[in-house]
């Protein structure tokens, strides 16, 4: 081993750039945009980390990944060591390395960001996780612990459910995940497109859980196929992680015209069913020449970039505030712009128009300006009087948000809900019913992958305590 680097040497290294597929090529296919760092670049980036005593980056991570530790191993070229630390802290590192908003979490707190650029923690997480996937044999399989004889049912196979299942299986409990759809992953599979998160990665993570003894039963809709009461009888504990899958309507005229989709339907057709993406898919989707996507979050970016890939000549974001207020990740906005997406800012939809044949032809827009800050602290968009105009649009996608799906809760009358229909759970995920825990978007409302995973981890710990 060579002499350790000095801090000065570390500070002199420039932040690594993520290699990307060229915008002209990628906007016509579904291949992953970010290609991942090469090993040398990853190690050099890891060497930028100054191994702070007070680990600010960890503070910024919702699940408290041991960031300096895994980066330190990587800097020393100890990839198996880095992988073990990361996998211990994070059940889905290859997913988080791709979709976490690092710039507002760990990297926002990174000490190196004060005077320059933060350590590219997200890129490194992805690099180590991908290495671990390719070298699974070298890392060795996890051996399931001796069974405790206790059984836990998990409702929903999204990030919260998958994380909880993994933790519970590692604690020796028998785990069965019940999933309503015909495939695993929740939003990771049906919402987030292949160009950001390849489905093969979800498959590997899910297989790892199966190897630990977790059973996954798809096509089971809790609340319909089985009720919560039945699960409580059959299992020693239940963890509910059924997400927030209920589209919010725009409530504007023309919403029922042909060519108008909710983001959930649009993305589900393409991502889960393969419409327009896989040669052997039977599910159709309307391609559209002019596609208007309403909203400014990650979901809206995913829809508009999908529209581009399906061949839209004009793919537009219609958002009622300005770009500074857009909740989408900075990287997604950047990628969308590179791919030729147009941004219609300070624009609110007021009606969808048709030529009379039942098909949408244009979106009537209202120009907005920013007024006084509202309750959220953001400046409130107010209409500019008389400023309306029509934008041609044959496909319109509503990506303004989702709420709590009542399917499960409708048949579980004892379960306490808040006024938005979300399940009420304490910091450990415990609901008002003994032995029933909940977490992820069904508790928080639409949030993030890592927060959902954090809930899964927390609840699994609480469930293990409850069972012992």
């Amino acid at each position, binding site marked *: 081993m060579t002499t350790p680097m000095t801090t000065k040497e570390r500070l002199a290294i420039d932040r690594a750039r993520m290699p990307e597929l060229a915008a002209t090529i990628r906007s016509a296919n579904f291949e992953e945009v970010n290609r991942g760092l090469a090993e040398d670049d990853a190690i050099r980036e890891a060497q930028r980390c100054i191994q702070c005593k007070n680990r600010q980056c960890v503070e910024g991570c919702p699940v408290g990944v041991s960031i300096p530790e895994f980066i330190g191993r990587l800097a020393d070229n100890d990839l198996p060591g880095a992988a073990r630390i990361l996998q211990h802290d994070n059940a889905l590192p290859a997913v988080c390395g791709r979709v976490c908003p690092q710039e507002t979490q760990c990297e926002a707190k990174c000490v190196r960001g004060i005077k320059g650029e933060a350590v590219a923690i997200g890129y490194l997480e992805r690099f180590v996780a991908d290495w671990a996937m390719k070298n699974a044999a070298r890392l060795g399989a996890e051996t399931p612990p001796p069974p405790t004889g206790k059984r836990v049912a998990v409702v929903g196979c999204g990030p919260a459910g998958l994380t909880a299942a993994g933790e519970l299986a590692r604690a020796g409990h028998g785990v069965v995940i019940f999933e309503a759809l015909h495939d695993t992953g929740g939003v990771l599979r049906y919402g987030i497109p292949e160009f950001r998160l390849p489905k093969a990665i979800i498959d590997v993570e899910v297989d790892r859980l199966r190897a630990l003894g977790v059973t996954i039963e798809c096509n089971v*809709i809790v609340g*319909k196929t089985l009720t919560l009461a039945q699960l409580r009888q059959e299992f020693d504990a239940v963890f509910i992680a059924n997400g927030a899958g209920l589209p919010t309507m725009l409530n504007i005229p023309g*919403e029922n015209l042909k060519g108008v989709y909710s983001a959930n339907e649009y993305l589900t057709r393409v991502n889960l069913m393969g*419409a*327009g993406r896989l040669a052997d898919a039977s599910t159709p989707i309307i391609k559209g020449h002019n596609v208007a996507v309403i909203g400014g979050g990650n979901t809206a970016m995913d829809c508009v970039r999908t529209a581009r890939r399906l061949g839209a000549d004009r793919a537009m974001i219609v958002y009622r505030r300005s770009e500074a207020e857009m909740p989408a990740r900075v990287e997604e906005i950047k990628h969308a712009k590179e791919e030729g997406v147009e941004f219609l800012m300070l624009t609110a939809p007021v009606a969808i128009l048709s030529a009379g044949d039942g098909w949408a032809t244009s979106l009537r827009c209202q120009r907005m300006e920013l007024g006084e800050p509202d309750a959220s602290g953001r400046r409130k968009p107010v209409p500019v009087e008389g400023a309306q105009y029509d934008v041609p649009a044959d496909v319109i996608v509503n990506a303004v948000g989702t709420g709590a799906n009542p399917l499960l809760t409708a048949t579980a009358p004892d379960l306490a809900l808040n006024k938005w229909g979300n399940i009420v759970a304490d910091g450990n995920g415990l609901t008002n019913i003994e032995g029933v825990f909940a977490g992820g978007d069904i508790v928080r409302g639409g949030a993030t992958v890592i927060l959902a995973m954090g809930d899964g981890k927390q609840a699994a710990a609480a469930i293990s305590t409850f069972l012992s």
Partner: protein
Amino acid sequence: MFEVVSNDVLAPSLHRMVVRAPRVAASRKPGQFVIVRSAPGEERIPLTIGDADNAAGTITLFIQAIGASTRTIVAIPAGGFLRDVAGPLGLPTHIEAWGRVACIGGGVGTAVLYPLAKALAAAGNDVTTIIGGRAESYIILKDELSAFSKEVLVTTEDGSMGRKGFVTAELADLMANPDTCPKAVFAIGPVPMMRAVAELTRPLGITTVVSLNPIMIDGTGMCGGCRVLVGGEPKFACVDGPEFDAHEVDFENLFDRLSTYRGHEAADCKLNRQVQP
């Protein structure tokens, strides 16, 4: 994987399929449906649960092969498997003792009507069933329905069986006589038929229930694709329905939305390549 126990042809392109799905069989109620996917890559297709045998753990589906996906489903022989069967979905039929009711089925709608008519009869209603079809060969389940109906009236468009014409003619006759006029009407079939029934019963204010068949994806209220306008409000047929008050339904919009993938420029998919009209 869900085993196909039997698969019989009842009428041209109409199949009765018995499928092993024990959990669905145990929890289903009349009016509910399942989402079926025959194989990976195939569409998710909603199909009403026609009947169920809890002891055997089976459900019965009646499937009209109209497009590529339903044709793929009915092509699976007994002993084969459906990749996915999810359900029961939708709200069960609201069953009440109305007294005298008319149950009207058109085409494959007759099959969808069957569990409902049976449940209405079991609740003590006097059931008159009217079934219609293009020709005699399309008339299905007549004997099965006769088992609990007071009367089964048949209409065919070509007059090859029963009365020549549409089901609405028989309904109009029932309504014209105070002794036979139904207290409630249940109509399931093509959209134009359901709309015609709704218009016939509207002036007399007879409670009329229809089961709607919009295009669905998940069937769990997640995608909003199945939205229909009922009383001017958007409703999701998969969770709020599929049965609704016929006098409140915007049939025009439903009819229109059902044509979304017919001939329009949709992304190339296997289905577009297979279905040559």
